[in-house]
């Protein structure tokens, strides 16, 4: 266990350090969610005037919940890019040779992804508050939103870690981000589920990201819904993604 923690701590530190000292890595993960927030909350605020649209804290808060969870997921995705880059540069292979407990590598990257997202999530939250977001939920409910984000980040980071370790090239970038992007955007992003129609309504109803998004919006509005379901689904998703990441690591070990 000590060797596991030793490896995890080292990899996490390096991941966070690389992010903080390299603007080319840090800025996209900060700027993208901010622009999504501006584009959705600012550019689409008129959507709140659609008949039957009802969300007490307003459209900025409605979109904040999505962008917050999206930034969590993409914090994990960006970590996958970093892992792929480590394989391309040869660093990951040297790491595999030297790490006394290799599963600590996955934990380290996942912890790095979490720290990285906490920074991004804080910036987005400040930006949304400056933009006039109303927060109705209490302290416990807001901690719940952070918990949802952390689990979303973990699931995405483990997914991205698995893909990056299976493919071991930066060209895996599209494959890492595309499924995450599509799953997130197949949730009720712009309007509540009841205002969606057609195929997107059918897909959004069974999309696990919908439960997380509705739970986050409910917590933000001080009227929690589907919270247990959202946490359950995210835990299940993280567990599956952990198995996937472990298999990716095994594949990388075999490849040498």
């Amino acid at each position: 266990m000590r060797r596991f923690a030793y490896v995890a701590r080292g990899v996490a530190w390096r991941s966070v350090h690389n992010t903080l000292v390299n603007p080319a890595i840090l800025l996209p993960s900060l700027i993208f969610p901010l622009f999504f927030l501006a584009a959705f909350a600012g550019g689409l605020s008129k959507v709140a005037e659609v008949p039957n649209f009802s969300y007490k804290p307003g459209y900025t808060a409605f979109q904040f919940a999505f962008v917050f969870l999206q930034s969590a997921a993409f914090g994990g995705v960006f970590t996958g890019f970093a892992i792929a880059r480590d394989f391309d540069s040869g660093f990951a292979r040297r790491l595999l040779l030297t790490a006394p407990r290799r599963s600590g590598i996955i934990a380290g990257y996942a912890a790095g992804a979490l720290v990285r997202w906490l920074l991004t999530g804080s910036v987005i939250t400040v930006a949304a508050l400056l933009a006039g977001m109303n927060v109705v939920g209490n302290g416990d409910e807001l901690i719940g939103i952070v918990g949802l984000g952390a689990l979303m980040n973990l699931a995405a980071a483990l997914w991205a870690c698995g893909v990056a370790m299976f493919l071991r090239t930066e060209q895996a970038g599209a494959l890492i981000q595309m499924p995450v992007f599509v799953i997130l955007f197949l949730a009720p992003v712009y309007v509540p589920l009841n205002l969606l129609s057609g195929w997107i309504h059918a897909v959004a109803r069974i999309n696990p990201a919908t439960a997380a998004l509705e739970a986050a919006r409910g917590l933000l509005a001080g009227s929690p819904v589907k919270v247990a379901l959202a946490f359950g689904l995210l835990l299940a998703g993280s567990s599956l993604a952990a198995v996937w990441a472990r298999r990716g690591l095994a594949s990388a070990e075999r490849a040498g």
Partner: protein
Amino acid sequence: MSSASPRPAFAAAAGGAPPALAAPSMLEQVGAVARRSIVRTFRQRALLVFPLLFPLILFAINGSALSAARRIPGFPDVSYRDFVLAVPFLQGALFVAVTAGTDLARDIQSGFFDRLALTPLRGSALLAGQLGGAVVVACVQSLCYLLVGIASGVGIASGFGGALVLLALSIVIAFGFAGLGSLLALRFGTGEAVQGFFPLLFVTVFLSSSSLPRNLIKTDWFREVATYNPVSYLIEGIRSLIITGWDGQALALGFGFALALSAITLSFAGAAMKNRLVRT
């Protein structure tokens, strides 16, 4: 012809003087570089598939997910899918910019560009030829977006002629962005730098009238940004052909900004090309 009357370039050889090759014409130079650019682009299937699929996926999702926006008072009397079909053309043009820039940067990084600089190839031919692959990709992409849009039930209000004008406009837009990609490659010389600009380019589409008409954007600062953002007029030019019919003002603005973008980026890229050739 070859035996009876030798090509002028080799005529001197008949008299015993060392043979001299004629410099290929400008058209031949552009053709040779363009052929290589096109072949290279089509060999990298990942570069074709992702730029083609990504805008279509966003179109499919946003066209349905935002369909409720149609119920906003003042929204044009068309389906949201019709309204938003213009956006993939712009997103595709951004991918063309990155592809063109990355390919050129790779040539610079690999030293191929330096070797070309030692040949009689003109800088303008090199630039025009490099953009050849990008333009072919733009043609394929635009046609795909249009056909997928029509297949999904979007009607082109300006008819068949309008569809042709739409394709022409989208290709001019893509050409302008390809020029921008080339400019970035020539200025910075690395693929990473070109790709690093992609989020910035993508943001210009978000901060435009891509999702709602400008008069329905409620947030003041956003409406101002969208009004000053040329991308709004590129999108509105394409959109007018789809949902309005023949709108002279929207088309003039669309083509005007697209041609201005092409002229500006190509002239700067031409200057950057000269600088880079001097450096080598």
